[in-house]
């Protein structure tokens, strides 16, 4: 699993990346009440807006960690936004992306680096 400075995580399987928000982010946001996800087929750019996670009092943009095309959005999370709080790095995944360039992953932090980064916040 790799991590961005914006608290997204990525898990790569072949050329499909699964993306979600980290446990830290989910904790900071408080109760997630709604998630706005892109439709399959949508193109995303690394660093560009991809989804919105809403808590009661705030709406937070989620950025695509990698460039590619959305192949799936997590229907579970649409029906039960609570899943993002319960298992943000597992069943609370948000989007699957077919990525163009797997090498982009190397620019992201691994878990050790991410945890060190969290320590600086």
């Amino acid at each position: 699993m790799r991590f961005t400075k914006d608290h997204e995580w990525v898990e790569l399987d072949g050329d499909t990346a699964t993306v979600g928000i980290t446990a830290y982010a989910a904790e900071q946001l408080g109760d997630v009440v709604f998630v706005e996800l892109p439709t399959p087929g949508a193109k995303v750019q690394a660093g560009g807006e991809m989804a919105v996670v809403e808590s009661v009092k705030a709406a937070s943009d989620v950025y695509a960690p990698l460039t590619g095309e959305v192949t799936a959005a997590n229907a579970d999370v649409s029906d039960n936004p609570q899943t993002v709080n319960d298992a943000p790095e597992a069943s609370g995944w948000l989007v699957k992306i077919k990525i163009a360039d797997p090498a982009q992953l190397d620019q992201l932090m691994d878990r050790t680096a991410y945890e060190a980064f969290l320590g600086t916040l």
Partner: protein
Amino acid sequence: MRYLPLSDTDRSEMLASIGVDSVEDLFVDVPAAARLPGPVDLPRQASEAAVERKLSAWAARNRAAGAGPFFLGAGAYRHHIPASVDHLIQRSEFLTSYTPYQPEIAQGTLQVLFEFQTQVSELTGLPVANASMWDGSTACAEAVMMASRVTRRRKAVLSGGLHPHYAASAYTLAHTSGVQTRRLAAAVDDEAAVIAAIDSDTACVVVQSPNVFGAVTDVSEIARAAHAAGALLVVVTTEAVSFGLLRSPGEMGADIAVAEGQSIGNGLTFGGPYVGLFACRNELVRQMPGRLCGETVDAHGRRGFVLTLSTREQHIRRDKATSNICTNSGLCALAFSIHMTLLGGAGLAKLARVNHASARSARDALAAIPGVEVLTPRFFNEFAVRLPKAAHVVVEALAKRDVLAGVPFSRLDPGAGLDDVLLVCATETTLPEDIEALAEALAEEIAR
């Protein structure tokens, strides 16, 4: 001064506590050049009695609607408001409370909003309604913007039967965001023209029923045509009492229903404050503007109400909000809700029938006048007539005889070429002698 409780002693003590010599020291950041040396050039303070005399003198220079025969509608309607309504809205806890941001101490307001939303939902025939907009015209404008967001299209077709002020308001809001409103030619019935104007760029079709000419339409065909093209149907109602008699917008296929709620609970007040009603299908709720009140429970499991789905709104979403609306029309919504509670659905149905009967009598009386042609075949409580003279001339002449005959269409839409059309409304407040007076005066004026 009766509204300012501080005494000079208080002021001195407080300045001492703060640690400054005079209140001027607190305005230290104001540029010297901008500090006014004394009061501006306006009258000095006045007693209640003096102020009352002044305001009363101005009020006396107006001819109140109820002071004689009165037949105006066209977006604002004279109905009898039960005495309890105005009495209740003046209770301190309703009048002087704020937006219910602290729900534990605002359940009065919140429960009222929940009841109001339920009433509006039921009347419009759509499952979700918001906690009020400013009025029908701005609600209509917001509906156009909402349809554009939902469909991601940039054109709106406005029926020629839509109140011209509503069309103008929609244009103002829409055009700076690149949403094009196309207003069809003013017409009593333009179903065919509306359907013909729908294309694959159409975000919504806006149809009013009863329309500005009073015509009642079954919009189901328009709904079908709009939906077939992937567009939304927005139905506008300016006379809320009509909900008591006519098929609801939701029943006829509306995706969004907006209305002016003024008729219920709120007097004419020369145009405002009024109350906008806004309802839509469930799937569209997150694109809805305005405040929403929802049901929940407190820590003890007791039922309560809170403002919800707030992430749509400006205070959270800022430049990505569904609208910039903040203040709503809370007290007017309360008045609407109280009156609606007194009426109940059965009472509103009865009120609507009385209105229709009253307007039919007026129509019959006017149709009997040589030279007067009734243009609206099927109406609720308002209809259009064609006169053999310019309608505004007739209206002015009748006003001098203390008969307020209706609204000349040219007042709303001077360029439509319908200068001989008069909009006439009769409600449950219209008496037989009023109709007689109107018919007599009109006949005489036409004959001159």
